[in-house]
């Protein structure tokens, strides 16, 4: 078991509302990732689930039982801290054994469980070293080991990999995914890293200023962001936003005029939009050189050559913000020379003046292998 529900959860520090009315259902065995800008309340929410932080309002329900007032152990939850939080005076063995010693488990049980955990995490050789003698990745594995020996139903991770370098982070990411499969436990994971969020999550929860902005599978968030915030937050580099005006609504979509051109976007039509100001979003990776359904004249200011990609920052007539485009492969584009950039109407996102998206007509299931 490891089913978790948040019901209208609120957290205030003094007068400052950090988490506002969050409701979320997490299925057993799911891998949930919390993302959001710094200070949006991810850690606070996680710490409330953990039982480290008091919940101001609402219910936290685990396996049908309200746990607001229970300590972490009674909730069946283990947490891995960003800073590892290992006990420096104890060996790796004792660090991992700590929760079992607290429980007063018999020595034989402790030895078996610690050795099992060490085997899963490839720490067998390190059991008698102190945390100070380990590398960052090994320390993080010890912290995970300490979490898994208790066999909790729910694991919480607060940016566990953010202290590691890029290569190690990639390795640990794969190891964590493997661990999730192996243990089958529910995991809730906070991260800043988009790649971690996209690759590990069954569902991503995007938090914005203490509210849930959108919950969904990674590709759903990428292809069908429900608002401008999620559209800008998911995807790297950020989505370009262009002002547009609605010219008319048909059964096939919404006709807009943008940068002096008129085009019909295949989005779910809605009545009463005619004449309204809107925002057109286009991801940099969907922009190509040359003509498209919509074509822009742009002058690149900066070109970044990454080898596998060419990223350009271009200025459009009458707009201050840069227009980003990402071309695959190495392209010899010169800066300060005007070029044509085009993109397809089907790749566009359309948002109304409140920032809410008009649903795009894409079938994600057709693009991916079916999940769950």
């Amino acid at each position, binding site marked *: 078991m490891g089913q978790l529900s948040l019901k209208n959860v609120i957290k205030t520090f003094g007068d400052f509302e950090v988490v506002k009315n969050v409701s979320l259902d997490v299925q057993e065995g799911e891998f949930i990732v919390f993302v959001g800008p710094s200070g949006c309340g991810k850690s606070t929410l996680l710490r409330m689930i*953990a*039982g*480290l932080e008091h919940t101001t309002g609402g219910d936290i329900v685990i396996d049908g039982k309200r746990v607001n007032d229970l*300590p*972490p*152990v009674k909730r069946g*939850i*283990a*947490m891995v*801290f*960003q*800073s*590892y*939080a*290992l*006990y*420096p*005076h104890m060996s790796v063995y004792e660090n991992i054994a*700590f*929760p079992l010693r*607290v*429980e007063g488990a018999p020595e034989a049980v402790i030895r078996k469980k610690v050795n099992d955990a060490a085997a899963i995490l490839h720490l067998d050789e390190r059991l008698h070293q*102190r*945390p*100070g*003698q*380990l590398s*960052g990745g090994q*320390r993080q594995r010890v912290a995970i080991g*300490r979490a898994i020996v*208790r066999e909790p139903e729910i694991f919480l991770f607060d940016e566990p990999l953010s*202290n590691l370098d890029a290569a190690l982070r990639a390795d640990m990411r794969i190891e964590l995914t493997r661990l999730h499969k192996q243990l089958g436990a529910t995991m809730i994971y906070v991260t800043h890293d988009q790649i971690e969020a996209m690759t590990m999550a069954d569902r991503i929860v995007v938090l914005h200023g203490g509210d849930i902005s959108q919950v969904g599978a990674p590709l759903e968030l990428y292809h069908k962001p429900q608002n401008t915030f999620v559209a800008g937050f998911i995807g790297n580099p950020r989505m370009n936003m262009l002002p547009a005006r609605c010219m008319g609504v048909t059964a096939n979509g919404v006709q807009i005029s943008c940068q002096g051109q008129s085009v019909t976007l295949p989005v779910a039509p809605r009545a009463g939009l005619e004449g309204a100001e809107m925002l057109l979003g286009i991801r940099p990776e969907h922009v190509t050189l040359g003509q498209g359904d919509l074509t822009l004249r742009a002058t690149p200011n900066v070109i970044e050559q990454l080898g596998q990609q060419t990223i350009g920052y271009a200025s459009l007539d009458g707009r201050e913000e840069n227009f980003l485009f990402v071309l695959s492969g190495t392209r010899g584009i010169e800066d300060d020379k005007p070029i044509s950039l085009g993109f397809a109407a089907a790749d566009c996102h359309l948002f109304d003046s409140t920032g809410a998206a008009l649903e795009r007509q894409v079938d994600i299931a057709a693009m991916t292998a079916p999940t769950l």
Partner: protein
Amino acid sequence: MAVRSKDTRPMIDRYRWWEVVLIYAGIFVFLFFMLAPFIEGFLVSLKPLSQLFSSPYKFWPENGSFKAYYTMWVSVPRFGRYIFNSFLISTVATIIVLALVVPAAYAFARFNYKGMALVLGGFLAVSMFSGAVLLIPLFRLMRTLGLLNTYFAMIVPGVAFLIPSAIWLLRTYMMRIPTELNEAAYMDGASQFYTFRRVILPIAAPGIVVVAITTFIGAYAQQFIFALTFNSKSDYMPLPVGLFAYFGKQDVIWNELMAASFVGIAPALVIIFFLQRYLVGGLTAGAVKQ
């Protein structure tokens, strides 16, 4: 071939020759002022008494010997007892201080409550009074409590005056232990007390040793004034008062006095020497990523 420098020091640690000379000269002057009394004291302890008042005065002892180190036990037969008393008073005081200060410092370091700043400030203010200013009220207090002429008369006020600085010292040390360790232990089901015993105490050990040493030294230095005022039983006299026994009716046996001083502080030196082995730094290495 290019000249290779064998010097591996970083640039910021390199000095010109005259800077080096100045630095060493400074160190020498400083050390000389600090150590001169000890050197002179030691030399005096080696001289026969007659030579001490010869003029012109000679620093270097002629036919010096360690004779005073034997005769001191004869002229003041209870001297061993005084050393023992000193030791007992300081040790008991240190143990009491540690027993009180370790939990208190932890509480001050970890918990926030109303009026904490006030209490801490109060401790600081108290430690600005030296015991000497409060001797008369203390004397009356001791008399009322019936503690005069007991070991407690020397231990209790000593403890009281040593606590504030010990709390401040240890609190600072404990504040450097990351709170995540408490949270991690809490997540693992440990109680406050279990966490304190199994996690905080071992990590704070070097800080506790520092506090133990400073408290022991403090108690050693302080006992003189309390012993002089609150105790008249020679059985309970600590070393500094015991040294007065070498002040005879007519004259002072200077060489034995000096010898006795050196013998008297030897046990304290030995203790400190053993304790400082535990002053290893970096015990929190690897706990958290800063």
